[in-house]
């Protein structure tokens, strides 16, 4: 197995990691960097639990090879909150009751962040569409969608 040394930015900090060619971004985050907030639900790109931002775009990190991320910028759920304040999507989903078991939550929050970055005032349909790749078995999505709507309001109020 060939190994590679890559450099990338994770949650704003520079990282240098040595990884085998076949290692996914998900495994690198969880195993090499101990960023276990990103979850492994299927390892097949079907459930969205491992969603992270890769250069600003939401991706299933189980479907991306770590070696492809040399020079990239990655944001995981651990990187959403600032020092003093939760991200609006985090704050809003707590308030709306959109968290139950919490296993899909990191992926849901990342997809929601990506949505609000490109569309600060999404409609309910746009939110449903943005989250269609993030499976949730507990909440029935209703309070998650309410949370994203509220997050948009909080974000507007903060800016």
């Amino acid at each position, binding site marked *: 197995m060939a190994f590679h040394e890559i450099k990338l930015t994770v949650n704003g900090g520079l990282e240098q990691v040595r990884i085998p060619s076949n290692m996914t971004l998900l495994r690198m985050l969880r195993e090499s960097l101990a960023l276990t*907030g990103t979850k492994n639900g299927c390892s097949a790109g079907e459930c969205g639990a491992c969603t992270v931002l890769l250069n600003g775009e939401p991706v299933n990190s189980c479907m991306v090879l770590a070696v492809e991320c040399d020079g990239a910028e990655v944001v995981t759920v651990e990187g959403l909150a600032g020092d003093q304040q939760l991200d609006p999507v985090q704050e809003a989903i707590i308030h709306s009751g959109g968290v139950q078991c*919490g296993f899909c939550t990191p992926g849901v929050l990342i997809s929601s962040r990506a949505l609000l970055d490109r569309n600060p005032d999404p409609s309910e349909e746009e939110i449903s569409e943005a989250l269609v790749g993030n499976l949730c078995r507990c909440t029935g999505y209703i309070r998650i969608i309410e949370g994203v709507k509220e997050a948009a309001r909080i974000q507007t109020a903060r800016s």
Partner: protein
Amino acid sequence: MEKTNTPKSHSPVGESKPRIDAREKVTGAALYADDIQFGNKLLHARIKRSPYPHARIKKVDLTRARALPGVKAVVSGEDFSGYIGLYLKDRQIFCRERTRYVGDPVAGVAAINPEIAEKALGLIEVEYEVLEPVLNPEFGASPQAPLLHPDLGQYVVASFILPRPGSNISNHFKIRKGDVASAWKKCAAVIERKYRIPHIQHAPLEPHVAIAKVDESGEVTLWDSSQSPFAQRDLIAETLGISQSEMRVIAPLVGGGFGGKAGVSMESLAVAIATKVKGYPVKLLLTREEEFYTAFVRQGLVATFKMGCDKNGRLLAMENTFYWDGGAYTEYGVNITRAAGYSCTGPYEVPNIKADSYCVYTNHPVGGPMRGFGMPEMHAGLEQCIDELALQIGMDAVEFRRRNCLKGGSILPTGGKMHPTGLSECLEKAAEAIDWGKKAPPTAPNKRRGKGLALMWKAPAMPGNAGSSAWIELAEDGMLTLGVGCQDIGQGAFTVAAQMAAAAFGVPYESVRVATPVDTRYSPYEWQTVASRITWSTGNAIINAAHDARQQVLDLVAKAWDETPADLDIVNGMVVSFKSEREIPVKDLAIKGLPKADGKGWMGGPIIGRGNFMPADVTGLDPETGQGEKAVVHYTTGAQAIELEVDLDTGRIDILKGVAAFDVGKAINPDMVKAQMEGGLIQGISSALFECLQLKDGVVQNPSFVDYRIATSADLPKSVQSIIVEVPQDDGPWGARGIGEHSMVPTIPAIANAIYDAIGIRFEGPPFTAEKIYLAMLEAGIVKG
């Protein structure tokens, strides 16, 4: 006036407090079992599984696998004897002589990384003699079927489970009440229907994971995603021949359970392998594919209903037969059969009943508990029959239910009396919310619109003596730490536990922390987090613990102030006297006590409260008639109503509105109760429209989220309404009873009844896929091809 177990101070109860674990869950800090770091000593386990539904193991050769560098242990059935199981010990950790489903564990490997472990599986050679499988429960119950468990008569079994050795029937629950045969003659209408409810999978987002370590002295530690750490301690220890106190289970947050992580399943595999590599933690993480075919499935059901009523619509008789597809091992499933048996009439008073509920061994995946524990499957057919019977005598379906549904004092199928219940209120509110009786026009010319409604009931199905316990400690800062052994599987158990402890002791909700993760070495005993029993059972234990701690505080302060405890109270963390109007913060005496009045020495000491709870009056049932005084602790009841449209061009169903109304006794946290109602409704819709574990010759054909579709954010009803009804439970904390499972029980029949209302077609069973609906409409001539 009802007697409710209601403590004096109750401010945090009844309020929609935010989840106690929300912040850690949104920041990624929340720890799940797979997140725990074990360092580079960690070994990875993989399981060699049977490719055949039924086979005799002729030879297992582990030599080549053992020789692979990086492999630390290879085990098979040879290495472990003994049986395991919750109600019926019919399962071995690894198969010894025979395999009984596709996926049955034959051998296991632990290696330094998952890739080597996987490679080693390929080097294990197993020779099988393929045997005839049983793939249908009705056939399985017949004398012609091959016998899957010839040793059934020797298995250890709970007293209330009734296996039929010499057959594939591992439990036969009967009800014989009144005189069914002569009742039919008095009926103005009788219908007979047969339904097939397919297997489905829990599909929690977090796959099963277990990490086991055995130290040199033989003590076992198991970290896992578990609804049942204490049951696992008990059952795994017993099977391995060690004592329960040598087995420690540490259970961090669970990423969704729905019953699939109750009892013992794959965890025993990790422990068994770990016994062969002492000192090494061994991790077994199921792949998503394994999750679909090797984890507990919701059993399939073949149900026949015969029911009749008089001309006034009064139900006179039911004759119901259930064949449960229990799968290869029915150690847990046997009790689903029993629960369906004693609840066989649905929430209706029926004077004449004959019911037979059979749990049947098949060569299908292992059946186990899933949200509703048999009730969604049973109600799926039953509540359609109720609609059909109403139609046959020309009565409105809501009116028919109004007349027949259980009220407080109604006679139950098991002979006892129903406790006070808000079922009628749920029915009225659900009917009102869906505008029952009013037909709205479809939203487009190519659509047909319909409404449907269904009722439900469900009791916690558990041994009569399933216990809970709790402890409470205070810290120097006045914070209260609550120890519980129940698990938060997403339903919010820890939040509700903290609310109840705060209210019962007299501190704000924010002053309570829950001692997690649940650890059988330090946490108080809890039977299992199942059966929607936690709010009720653990809640009672928490109240008892809080009262114990509270009494210690009040006695101490009363002595110090020369007052009586009855004049004192704890409010917002302050001990206050109504008599002298003195006050003192609890934190000032929580650890160090108080000085004696004469200044010579101290009194009190660290405050620690303890409490337990166990139902005391559940009786057995007669094995021939199913009659007894008190079959279960209580029933939660409710109703759902659905309005939908069927697209004539595609057969696709759009749910326009979903209404849920449940009698929860008392909503400790109303928002979280509603969240259960919503989540259950969507899971119910998912099971009605999409979900089916497709089994062909015993092989699951769709073991992925692509081929086994669950509801996504695009499948929501346009509107959802949740209605809380509160008729208090006399022995519930603040009157509360459970709601976790009930919210998906009536969804399938409510949708089926709405489909009938829209297009006049009924189906043998779900899922009501667009394809199935379209083809049925084609056949019925509603649409033209």
